[in-house]
């Protein structure tokens, strides 16, 4: 493998992945609102229309349900669509097609019609976009059998997950956190497809396991630094794939550290963090030295002003606090 590194951003890594996929496989095309003339609402597909033309970089009318359904149909018809939904909140308009068709068709048809569809969408808060553009529903989508849910949190994953997802015979939803698009960093010049089955340890530690994904990985790593300053060694796990969950990696870590904090930007009640906590309960209860803690978003439609939005979202200080609580639990 070639180890020259290139400067890039999360946005550019996504674009490079789409471009590579389109060059490698004629069946791949990108479809969604403003992916073409506009260049993508977050400029991910900028320049691709010029390179691939309007048939493969396909602007759609405002019709989330129909163009997601059309993506499903074209996947059945032999194409490998990448459907872009601008923002997770708008995906609710296409949820019928996603759950009742994309996720169910293979089963309903007794294995005859698989749906090799990839849907990309922006998720998450932190940009003061208020109550209809800021939610984190990827953990909620992870409830649906038949879907694979991915949350790229790094440049490598932004570059590589899409390529692997396009090889998946079944529907894959990729959630791109809006606050990551401008994230800068270096990437191997020959970076490409990555595994989409396993969680990974982003930072090793021995005292407490911090489990997170997507937009809160950075915040959680900051929290680990804060904890290190207090002499607490935190292991940080990036789930990467929210469905199916890779229990082995996070359970294994908790067995070593005996403590866990789940960080999830979703609303607390019924968030993915609850599923993780329940699985630790089921698989590692006797290894725990303290109750599993959860740091999630406040249960409120996100407000516009920065001070309120910050208060609603997981922050490194609150994560560190939760971790400290696990170090000295008051026996209930």
């Amino acid at each position, binding site marked *: 493998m070639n180890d020259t590194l290139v400067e890039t951003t999360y946005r550019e890594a996504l674009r490079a992945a789409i471009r590579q996929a389109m060059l490698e496989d004629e069946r791949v095309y990108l479809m969604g609102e403003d992916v073409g003339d506009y260049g993508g609402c977050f400029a991910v597909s900028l320049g691709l229309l010029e390179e691939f033309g309007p048939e493969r970089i396909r602007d759609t009318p405002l019709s989330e349900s129909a163009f997601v359904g059309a993506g499903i149909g074209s996947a*059945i018809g032999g194409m490998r669509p990448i459907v872009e939904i601008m923002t997770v909140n708008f995906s609710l308009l296409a949820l019928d097609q996603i759950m009742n068709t994309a996720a169910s068709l293979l089963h309903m048809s007794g*294995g005859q019609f698989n749906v090799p569809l990839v849907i990309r969408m922006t998720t998450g808060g932190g940009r003061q976009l208020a109550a209809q553009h800021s939610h984190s529903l990827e953990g909620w989508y992870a409830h649906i059998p038949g879907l694979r849910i991915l949350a790229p949190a790094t440049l490598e994953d932004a570059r590589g997950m899409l390529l692997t997802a396009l*090889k998946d015979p079944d529907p894959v939803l990729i959630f791109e956190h809006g606050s990551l698009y401008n994230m800068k960093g270096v990437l191997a010049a020959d970076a490409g497809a990555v595994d989409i089955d396993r969680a990974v340890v982003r930072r090793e530690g021995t005292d407490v396991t911090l489990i997170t994904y997507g937009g809160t990985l950075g915040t959680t790593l900051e929290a680990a630094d804060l904890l290190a300053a207090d002499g607490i060694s935190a292991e940080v796990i990036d789930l990467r794939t929210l469905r199916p969950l890779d229990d082995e990696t996070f359970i294994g870590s908790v067995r070593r550290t005996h403590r866990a904090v789940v960080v999830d930007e979703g609303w607390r009640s019924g968030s993915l963090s609850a599923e993780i906590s329940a699985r630790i309960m089921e698989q590692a209860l006797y290894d725990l030295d303290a109750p599993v803690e959860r740091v999630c978003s406040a249960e409120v439609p996100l407000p516009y002003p920065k001070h309120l939005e910050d208060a609603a979202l997981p922050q490194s200080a609150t994560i560190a606090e939760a971790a400290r609580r696990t170090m000295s639990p008051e026996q209930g």
Partner: protein
Amino acid sequence: MNEHSAGTSSPDQATAPDTEHRRELLRTMVLIRRFEETCAELYSAARIRGFVHLCVGEEAVAAGVMAALGPDDAVLSTYREHGHALARGLTLNSLMAEMFGKQTGCSGGRGGSMHLFDKSHRFVGGNAIVAAGLPLAVGLALADKLQNRDRVTVCFFGEGAAAEGEFHEALNLAALWRLPVLFCCENNLYAMGTSIAKEHAASDLALRAESYGLSAWPVDGMDVLAVERSAVRAVEAIRGGGGPHFLELRTFRFRAHSMYDPDRYREKVEIEQWKERDPIDALVKTMKAAGQIDDAGLAAMRSEVADAVAAAVDTAEQAPFEPVENLTRFVTSEAGTGEDRP
């Protein structure tokens, strides 16, 4: 729309009546009728379950449209799809077995009446979400266009479905992208208990479809020959690059919406009047007039079909169920199905 009015013309204007072909159309309709009446009996006897929607009275639509298609064309249907499936050529055994939820069913038994699928016939299924098939049809047609395949995708739905947002979005996409889709709206005047007058502010559906820039016209859905003529014309136009077409097939269901439905919302007389236009009787009349069938021939056909359906019931009953251990199969693809990640 006037140049299309032949679409609603009377059978005797049919060009070059072909006895064999008409006998096939007749047999298809007789088969659908018999299949569904058998399903009704089986349902009443609690031998099949779930929701079962019969198309008795609407057989001409299924038989006529399918006669215009080739093997590579795709068909999408609804929960009221027994007729479409039989007319498309799915085997009687695989369909009856599916009604019983058997492994030998066309969907391996997992679908039941509302989810009949058959990849080998490009029958992309029943669909129990009203109007959900329209965007799928747009996508299948888009795939054909992008792969330069000369195929047509046919999508059946009811007049009630035309009130759903997906109808609007899908017709716009199909017209905007000039996709090879034939939209077949089965206007049977009722959506469950809701009459078309309570469903649509503007109830001329062909006109509504035309307002999106599709070629659209109404067809007498009780006249299988008229349906076939219109479908052939539409499919030829689509293959010729004429873009999506829309047929409003005016028909009526003789039975209730589903086996659950006491049918309180329709006047008996309305049903009786439509029954006088029974599509099977109508074709028989035409064929008799043309000397293409006689009572003996008809009786023979009916008993042959009855035997076939009865045999399918026996076969289905003897067929095995999917083992319980296989419950979670087909939630995601297995090695071999679909395409796998390396």
